[in-house]
């Protein structure tokens, strides 16, 4: 279409024939320009959507990731102490008189601005018990008559003499931090500033990531196991029956997830006694609901796996298997040596897609999961809605996102996102 205005006209220049377009430009140049125009035209068609997705999807997620490394609750509300930490980079441990001056002035100002709770919570993330320390100390600091403050503060609460508290405050005075990533990996800063494992009993995130991965792998495998024969059947049945069968396979995909969850609860009894709990590591209740999760999830995502499998096995000509049989292979050999290897790409595609979708599994665990059925998505929601540790939620989300993007990239390499099909 773009090339219609180009007519080739020969012209002799310096003995070499240069083919030119109607307007006299060399044909090569005109072609390049026409190609560039076609590329631009195609791109401009995509641009509105790309801009929309950028604004309502990429920017929000970018903002979320930024929150995982940036927390200004302390540095914004304790400016003088932050400045003191900057001015005294070498002095570790408990501060001297000037540090306590800055602390008391900041606490009084924060109390007036009603932000002292926020400061306390920020420190509390790393040193439990600090919220009340900050609140009560600020309340009493208002009544101090004047410096020197250090002695008075230590009198108010001996915890101010704790070097660990001061090293936490020093780290918190910089809004850019990796603390939340460490927390999401069950690590923490020691008082000396090294990175170490947290106490055995408090390790919940790494086991939870592992559980999410294992559960997703189990779901992917079950879907494969259940979906493979169906996919084979769909590909070999006459069209009339396979269409009907396809409708049944797709039905779970089209039924509301909440409806499916409701029917699950109705079928398998009320898990009231174990719902709305969070995964405390020593909670052993409701094991049955954890087990209950797997087959259910498999049914949910089974339909997705069948998509992938079916698309591939439909392209395998049945003559291959027949040829193997005519050459003397028994049915099993014909399947294992001929049919199965040809379906491997489909298996990979289907299982990987199920795995990716299962990793972000949130709704069903939240409703029927019980204590041990919670997955990483549920913990992100917990930190967003209940504990309000948004930075930790963001760090957990960032780690989950990194895993998903890796798998998505893998999927793109193996299958190609442009080959994805729905029904």
């Amino acid at each position: 279409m773009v090339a219609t205005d180009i007519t080739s006209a020969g012209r002799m220049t310096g003995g070499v024939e240069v083919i030119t377009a109607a307007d006299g430009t060399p044909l090569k140049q005109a072609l390049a320009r026409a190609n560039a125009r076609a590329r631009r035209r195609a791109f401009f068609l995509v641009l509105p959507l790309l801009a929309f997705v950028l604004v309502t999807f990429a920017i929000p997620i970018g903002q979320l990731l930024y929150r995982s490394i940036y927390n200004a609750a302390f540095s914004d509300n304790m400016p003088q102490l932050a400045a003191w930490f900057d001015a005294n980079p070498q002095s570790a441990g408990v501060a001297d008189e000037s540090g306590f001056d800055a602390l008391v002035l900041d606490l009084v100002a924060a109390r007036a601005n009603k932000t002292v709770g926020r400061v306390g919570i920020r420190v509390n993330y790393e040193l439990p018990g600090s919220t009340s320390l900050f609140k009560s100390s600020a309340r009493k600091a208002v009544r101090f008559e004047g410096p020197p403050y250090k002695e008075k503060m230590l009198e108010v609460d001996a915890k101010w003499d704790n070097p660990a508290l001061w090293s936490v405050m020093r780290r918190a005075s910089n809004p850019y931090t990796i603390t939340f990533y460490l927390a999401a990996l069950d690590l923490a800063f020691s008082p000396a500033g090294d990175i170490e494992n947290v106490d055995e009993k408090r390790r919940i995130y790494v086991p939870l990531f592992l559980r999410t991965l294992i559960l997703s792998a189990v779901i992917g495998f079950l879907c494969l196991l259940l979906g493979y024969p169906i996919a084979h059947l769909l590909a070999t049945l006459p069209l009339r029956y396979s269409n009907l069968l396809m409708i049944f396979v797709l039905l779970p995909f089209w039924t509301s997830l909440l409806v499916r969850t409701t029917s699950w609860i109705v079928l398998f009894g009320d898990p009231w006694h174990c719902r709305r709990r969070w995964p405390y590591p020593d909670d052993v209740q409701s094991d049955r609901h954890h087990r209950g999760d797997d087959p259910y999830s498999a049914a949910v995502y089974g339909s997705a796996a069948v998509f992938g499998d079916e698309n591939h096995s439909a392209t395998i000509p049945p003559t291959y298997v027949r040829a193997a049989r005519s050459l003397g292979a028994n049915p099993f050999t014909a399947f294992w040596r001929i049919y199965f290897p040809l379906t491997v790409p489909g298996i990979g595609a289907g299982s990987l897609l199920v795995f990716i979708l299962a990793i972000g599994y949130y709704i069903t665990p939240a409703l029927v999961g019980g204590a041990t059925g919670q997955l990483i998505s549920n913990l992100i929601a917990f930190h967003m809605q209940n504990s309000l540790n948004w930075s930790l939620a963001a760090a957990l989300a960032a780690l989950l996102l990194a895993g998903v993007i890796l798998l998505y990239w893998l999927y793109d390499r193996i299958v190609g996102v442009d080959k994805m099909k729905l029904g």
Partner: protein
Amino acid sequence: MDPAGYSMRWYDQILTFGMSAPDQARDTSWWSDVWENAQWVRAAKNSIIIGSMATLLATVLGTIAALGLSRPEMPYRRFIMGVLISPMIVPLIITATGLFFFFSSTGLAGTYPGIIMAHAVLGIPFVIITVTATLTGFDTSLSRAAASMGANPVRSFRLVTLPLILPGVISGALFAFVTSFDEVVVVLFVASFEQQTIPRQMWNGIREQISPTILAVATVLVIFSVLLLTAIELLRRRSERLRGLTPG
């Protein structure tokens, strides 16, 4: 099995729940009370408004983009396609959390435009996938023929391309609608009480106690999804016939 155990009153409950005067005579004012106050009816209204607006947005933008994406000269085709499909891949909780922060800082939290935009983003991958799949079988010489007869690109799209890819577009739109109609996580994070949808209302019910009303709603929704699925299947077959992939 006790025959007296069967009752339709829970379906009636869908209408009356939340009304100011459910026991009055069922005249026009009773029905207007249903329309105004019944919680499930309001949730259904919200679901339909949000779902159809999000579908419209996703389908229009998605179809235009799919036209560009299916051209061979599209630059960075695979990467852009990957970006546009990613809302389907990224765990919903991450999308919801990100949107919560973004909407809170831009004042879109708890508003209809906010929810509609969020649901449109979630529906876009489905539109892109179905429409590009339809366009791979599209014979481009048809639109070239239209151009050679003097149709401008818009006219040739409207009269030639669109009628042929319409089944794919509609099935993508249905996918987008169902995505929005079934979506609860983003609604949980960014909607206020005003924008309660059916899944949101069900979420409350399931978390508290499963009343027979919830089961009645669930039954209605199952029937709804069977109807939608049948529509999709019929469209898919029609699309394949139009493109000559299977003998009609």
